[in-house]
Structures are given as structure tokens and as C-alpha cells.
């Protein structure tokens, strides 16, 4: 009872901190949006509504496209055995963990109007110009489908791995053919996985900024519309736009959650997953191998392109189909020119600091919510999840709104324009992943272990250090690595909140692209890619 008594004030303090950090800026945003005539001018302008509609339909189409690529891919890699299956199966999941902006510029180098494919076709067909301009809704969709299939691929594979082989055999024994088994048994059983993937794809696509920013051209979605309004100094309008986007996101969340259905579907299965079919007929086997390799190479080609482009020294590649000179020039410049090194260091320290902050908050939340079961536990858990449900642009604008005023009595200080605002934004964006991982970690932890430590005379600190934290290590590593990688490669929050002094890697890439230093941009991209992969690799180790 006394311990609970001591926990309650701590719970209150944490809830207050999270409310200030997560909810307060949103509330201020809404209040701001209601003032003036921004609301009216939003409603009157056709461009606003078409951007909002574009965000919705692009997201829905992205879900369809990603499902179309990801689901068959998952079946191929989960059900059939062919040479190279294991390695390729892991490799094609990679885009999920790489910064979206890196994927977008990689795509640009491959399929853009001066990318490899265009150059190749141009020289093949003897054209005087690039055969296409990669721009507009089609280009955005292509990038989305190309990168977001991973959600469907991963979720479907996980669902298939949980499937009880006896279910399939039962269908077969009852006379069902392959197609009927898939249609009436496998897919219904996969429904929770597919709904989860759809939700994730929808939310990611709704919040997607880099693809429409780079490829949109005149075609605006809500995220780019917000950015444009902000650049134009129409802050009131940007605020209203942000609210509109947030509302769509919440509506999508609620609607898609409902289709996720009951969890009993997985609860019944006790058996083991179906054995992979070893394809015996040489022709079928060859076909599966070709399809598997073909798809995998196609999907990974942008990232390979990025590596290739990063090796092209400045101004050595003009009209040739393939770059004539390759070297490590760009990387040397990255690490030797202070101008270039700074963004690297900036990104690293900001990612590190924001991750440390997010992990600390998540640990405190895990302790108070799961262990001490403080009264405000539902509130705390809800606040931790909110930044996931809202696009990054929304949070960036909300934080910019909240912290551009000095009003200490309202708990508002001027942070915009200082180096603090960006790591703070990263921290908030990192709360859902760290929170979810660490809370889950706490829930799996046997409380008897801590009680055993206490009964052996260990005080609270020693118990935390020697028992709780070591047990939480996998959850901690998983949450922290995701948060770190998210901050390291962030584009959408950074572009709205950065200052020159703490410009991160993504801003430097953006700047380099603008002055056509594509080699440097690509080298930065590769650094981000490798750093992300390494950090996530460490985080996933058991």
C-alpha cells in the first residue's frame, strides 16, 4: 500500500509530462486553427479539398498496390523452397527498415528521368530526350507500392508461419482444391494479419512526405500542401490543413481497426506451420526460382543503384548510359569536409539523445503502468500511442505552433529556431515504438523475479539494474533501435523544424540534390542505409 502511495505521484508526474509533450501541442494547434479566417479560406479553396482527397485515394491505392505485390511474395517465400530463398526472403524485407527518403532518392536515380532505366531506353531507342518524366500521382503510387509492399509481405509471412498445417490438410481431405483452400481457409485465417498490414500501409501512406515532395510536381497531397503553406508564410492555413490531415488519419485508424476482427482466429491453432513445399518438378522449380530472384532483384534494385551512384565522382557523368568513372571520392568528401561531416554528426547526436529520452520515458511508463498499475495507466498508454496515429507532419506543425511563443505560465517556451526542437520532435515520434516494445517487455516479465530479488535483499536499484533491465534487454534493444533509425533518417519532421546549425543528413541530401551533386547525395543515402541496417541488426539480436 505504501509503495503504491509513492507510485501515484510519479504516475501523475509522468502523465503530466506526456500530456504536455504529446497532447498539449495538438490542443494548441486546434485552438490556433479555430482562430481567424483560416478555417474559412481552407473550406473555400478547391485546391485544399483536392489535396485532401488526393491523400485519401493515394493511400487507398497504395494499400491495394502494396497488397498486390506483398501477399503473393509472402506466399512464394513462405510456402516454397527454392535456391536462395532464405537470403532473398530476408533481403526483400529490408526496405521496411530503411529511411523512406533514402528509398525515394534511390528510386529517383533508377527510374527518374535521368536515371539508369531512362538513360538505357534513351540510348537503346535513339531518343533525343528522356522517354518519361517521373512525376505526379502515378510516380507517387509507384514509389509507395515499391516500398510499402514490405508491410504486407512481413505481416502475411508471419501469419502464414502461424498457420496450423492441419487446417490446410483438413481442407484438402474434405476435397478442397488448392484455390478453394487458399480462398476459404487461408485468407480468412490471415485476416487479422492482412488488416494490420492494410492499416500500417494506409497510415504510412497518408503521412508520406518524401515521395510526394520529390515526385509530386504540381500534384499535391495534404503533407506537401502543409509544407507549401508553411513556406508561403500562411501559418493559419497550414494549421487548419494539419487538423484536416489528423482527422483523416484518426478516421482511417478507427475504420481499419474495426475490420481487424477478433483474435480468436489465431487462438485455436495448436499445430505446426505447414512444411515448405520442395518443388520437385524441374520446370516449376526453375520458374519459382526465376520469379523469386526476379522479384527480389527488382525490389532491391533502387538500393543497389544508390550504392552505384554514390561511387560516381562529381561532374564525371553526363550523357553516358553508365557512369564512366567510379571511386570513393564522395565518401572522402563526406568525412573530410567539415561542411559535410557536420550533418552526419548532427543526425547521430540528435538520434542518440532523442532515443535515450524516449527510452527513459518508456521505461518509466512500463514500470508505472505494468508494475505499479497506477491509476492513470490508461491515459499514459494512450498518450504514448498517439504519435503513431498521426502523420509526422501533424506533429511537426503542432510542436512548431506550441513552442514558437514565450509564455512560461502556459508552459510554452520559444524552441523553434533552436537546436532543441528537432530532437524533441524525434523523441515524441519515437515514443510509440519504444513504448510499445518496452510495455510488452514488462508484461512478459515474471513479477516473481523481482520479488525473488527483493526477498534476497536487493534494493530497488539493484533489482532494476541486475534483474529487470537485463530481462528487458531484447525489448529495450528492439524499441531503441527502431526509434534511433527513425530519427536518423527522418525527413518529414526535419524539413519543417530544422535550423542550419543542426541540419540533419536528410536535409543535406536534399540540398545536394538541388545543386545536382547526386554522388554526394547518394553517399549520404548509403551511409544512412548502412547505419540503419547495422543498428537494427544489433537491435534484433537476442
Amino acid at each position: 500500500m505504501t509503495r503504491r502511495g509513492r507510485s501515484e505521484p510519479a504516475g501523475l508526474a509522468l502523465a503530466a509530462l506526456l500530456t504536455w509533450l504529446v497532447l498539449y501541442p495538438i490542443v494548441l494547434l486546434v485552438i490556433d486553427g479555430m482562430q481567424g479566417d483560416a478555417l474559412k479560406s481552407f473550406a473555400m479553396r478547391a485546391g485544399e479539398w483536392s489535396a485532401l482527397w488526393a491523400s485519401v485515394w493515394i493511400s487507398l491505392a497504395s494499400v491495394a498496390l502494396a497488397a498486390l505485390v506483398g501477399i503473393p511474395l509472402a506466399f512464394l517465400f513462405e510456402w516454397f523452397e527454392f535456391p536462395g530463398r532464405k537470403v532473398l526472403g530476408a533481403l526483400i524485407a529490408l526496405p521496411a527498415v530503411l529511411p523512406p527518403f533514402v528509398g525515394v532518392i534511390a528510386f529517383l536515380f533508377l527510374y527518374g528521368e535521368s536515371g539508369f532505366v531512362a538513360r538505357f531506353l534513351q540510348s537503346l531507342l535513339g531518343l533525343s530526350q528522356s522517354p518519361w518524366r517521373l512525376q505526379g500521382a502515378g510516380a507517387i503510387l509507384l514509389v509507395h507500392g515499391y516500398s510499402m509492399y514490405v508491410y504486407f509481405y512481413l505481416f502475411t509471412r508471419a501469419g502464414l508461419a502461424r498457420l496450423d498445417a492441419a487446417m490446410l490438410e483438413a481442407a484438402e481431405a474434405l476435397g478442397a482444391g488448392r484455390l478453394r483452400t487458399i480462398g476459404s481457409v487461408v485468407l480468412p485465417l490471415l485476416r487479422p494479419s492482412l488488416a494490420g498490414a492494410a492499416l500500417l500501409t494506409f497510415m504510412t501512406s497518408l503521412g508520406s512526405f518524401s515521395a510526394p515532395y520529390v515526385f509530386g510536381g504540381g500534384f499535391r497531397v495534404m503533407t506537401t500542401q502543409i509544407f507549401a503553406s508553411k513556406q508561403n508564410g500562411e501559418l493559419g492555413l497550414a494549421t487548419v490543413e494539419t487538423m484536416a490531415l489528423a482527422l483523416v488519419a484518426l478516421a482511417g485508424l478507427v475504420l481499419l481497426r474495426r475490420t481487424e476482427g477478433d483474435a480468436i482466429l489465431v487462438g485455436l491453432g495448436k499445430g505446426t506451420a505447414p512444411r515448405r513445399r520442395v518443388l520437385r518438378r524441374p520446370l516449376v522449380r526453375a520458374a519459382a526460382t526465376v520469379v523469386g530472384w526476379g522479384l527480389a532483384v527488382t525490389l532491391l534494385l533502387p538500393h543497389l543503384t544508390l550504392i552505384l551512384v554514390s561511387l560516381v565522382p562529381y561532374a564525371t557523368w553526363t550523357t553516358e548510359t553508365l557512369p564512366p568513372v567510379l571511386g570513393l571520392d564522395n565518401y572522402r568528401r563526406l568525412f573530410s569536409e567539415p561542411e559535410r561531416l557536420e550533418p552526419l554528426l548532427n543526425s547521430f547526436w540528435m538520434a542518440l539523445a532523442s532515443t535515450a529520452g524516449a527510452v527513459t520515458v518508456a521505461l518509466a511508463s512500463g514500470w508505472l503502468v505494468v508494475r505499479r498499475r497506477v491509476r492513470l495507466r490508461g491515459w499514459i498508454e494512450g498518450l504514448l500511442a498517439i504519435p503513431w496515429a498521426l502523420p509526422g507532419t501533424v506533429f511537426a506543425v503542432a510542436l512548431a505552433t506550441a513552442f514558437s511563443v514565450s509564455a512560461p505560465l502556459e508552459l510554452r517556451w520559444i524552441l523553434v529556431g533552436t537546436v532543441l526542437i528537432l530532437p524533441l520532435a524525434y523523441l515524441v515520434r519515437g515514443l510509440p515504438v519504444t513504448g510499445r516494445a518496452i510495455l510488452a517487455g514488462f508484461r512478459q516479465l515474471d513479477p516473481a523475479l523481482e520479488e525473488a530479488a527483493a526477498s534476497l535483499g536487493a534494493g530497488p536499484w539493484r533489482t532494476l539494474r541486475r534483474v529487470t533491465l537485463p530481462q528487458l534487454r531484447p525489448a529495450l534493444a528492439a524499441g531503441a533501435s527502431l526509434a534511433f533509425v527513425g530519427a536518423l533518417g527522418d525527413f518529414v519532421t526535419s524539413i519543417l523544424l530544422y535550423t542550419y546549425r543542426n541540419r540533419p543528413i536528410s536535409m543535406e541530401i536534399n540540398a545536394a540534390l538541388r545543386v545536382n551533386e547526386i554522388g554526394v547525395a547518394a553517399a549520404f543515402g548509403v551511409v544512412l542505409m548502412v547505419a540503419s541496417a547495422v543498428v537494427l541488426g544489433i537491435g534484433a539480436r537476442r
Partner: protein
Amino acid sequence: MVAEAPFLVLDQLRVQFNDTVTIGPVSLGIQRGEILALLGPSGSGKTTLLRMLAGFERPDGGRVSIEGEDVTAVPPAQRRVGMVFQHYALFPHLDVGENVAFGLAGSGARATVDGKVRDALALVDLASFERRKVHELSGGQQQRVALARALAPAPRVLALDEPLSNLDPSLRERTRRELRQLVKRIGITAVFVTHEQEEAFDLGDRIAVLQAGRLEQVGTPEDLYERPASLFVGMFVGRANVLRGAAARALGAAPGHLVLVRPEQLRFGANGLRGVVAERRYTGSTAFFTVALESGERLEVEAAPDAARVGDQVAVGAGGTLSFPEPRV
């Protein structure tokens, strides 16, 4: 009497998993309407054999034929073998009626299918359960739905993989009897897998004992118990004392042979193997006495509860013994 060709034939069935694990070759004939138990310890290949019969496992050699038709290459969907899975494999997203109707797709009008579903559910005593969710049912009810689902499409053979292993022990005995009555009433040929001797004896007309992928013996429960073809069968089926050396010779074994003797075949008397009663376990109508022989071996004797007391010096004689060549180590 001219022997009728068996309804279901496993002919030299064989499957090789890797260099060390081979199942078979196994040959078995099963008569129409017969219930055959595949009995053996885990890893003996009994489930694999059942799966080859149902078509889920491809044999590396041999044939399966039903009613004279070679079905070895026929996929499970066309084989018409009804299967009850160990964990039932009921589709959780379908209700009871939909589960039972699954195998009836394309077998006629809606009304016909509905009628068949009702009949199948009535057969297993679940007449009013059509619209119930699978996860709302008890284990015993799920088992019966699985049975109804397998039987609804009127298969030629019913295959059951450990059909009772998922039930509470208290429920098992009753379910066993009901299952046998049901199968006999329908008259379907059935093959089931079990690792429990009692279950095999209760359910099966005949029992095939498997060990390490080999068929040790096929026969009625009496055959297996009274005339085991091998030392393994004798020891796996029922309680058995195994004696070697001098003790075996004292019970009439030839040199190089050992003796297997059932506890109820042993009795206390004036002559026989001498020893001391070390333990007595009372079961009601009888008691089991553990006798420590002077030769150092231990014997289990079933006798009247008052036949001896712990600590008594006794002599144990045998009514009937079985003798097997001593296995080479």
C-alpha cells in the same frame, strides 16, 4: 472359406526421411467395416503410415489401394478418406455447420447440403449446434464436430490421428466406447493411431504394432497379449516380467532364451523362484506384489490381496510363460 480381398491394402509402403530414419516397408490388409489400430511408441511411424493412407505423405515405394483401386498417386482431395486430426483442425472462422458443410461443396443443392449437415451432426449427438462457434465448444464437442465433418462427405475410409489424446482422462473412456459404437453403426472402415494400448484394445478390431518404422505384429488383442510375435510386442502390450539367465532357465527357457511372463500368470506356492515381498500395491479385486528374487531380479506378481505381506519369504511359480531368443546387444 475363401478369403475376400481386403478393402484397404497397404502394400510394401515405405518412406525414407533421411539416412537414419526409414518407415516401412509395411504391408497391411484391412477388411471392409473393420477398425484397425496403429499402435506404437512415439517415433514408430504410425502417424506417417496414416498420413500416407490419407495422401498427405508421399511414399517412396509401395502402393495404397482402396476397393481394388490404386490411390497411391491420388491427391488427398480426391481420395475420399475422411480424416480426424489430432487437434481437430476445425476452421475457427467458420461455425459448426459451416465446418461440417465444408466437404460437401458441389454435392448438390443447398437444401441437400443442409440436410447432410444436420444428419452428420445428429449422428454425433450435436443436433442443435449448427450455428455455434467452434471456440465455444468443449474439447469433447470439438472432437465430435471434427468427426461429423470427416463423415459428412461419406468417405470410403475414416482415418483418425490420436482422436482421444486431446480429451480429459475422465472423458476418454466413455468417448472411446461411443466412438466405436458410432463407427460400427455406420459400418465404415476405420484406421486410427494411438500410443495407448488400452485405447487400441478398446477401439480396434485388430491392432498393428509398430516399432522404429517396422510392423511387428498384426492381430486381435488376444493374439497380441497371449501370442506376441516378438519380445517388443510382449513388453509393449500389457504388463510383463522379463527374466534372463538362471531365473529364465528355472522357468523352463532354453539356453540363450529369455522368458516373458505376465503378472497374473505368476502365483505364490511351495516351489519356484525364491524371494522376499518388497512392496504391495492394492487395486481392489487384486494386488500387485513386487518380489525381490534371490538372484537380484524383481518380479511383479498379481494375486489375491491377502496372498502375502511385505517382508514375507515366498516362492513364485509360473502358470504360463513365453520364451524369446535373447536379443543380441
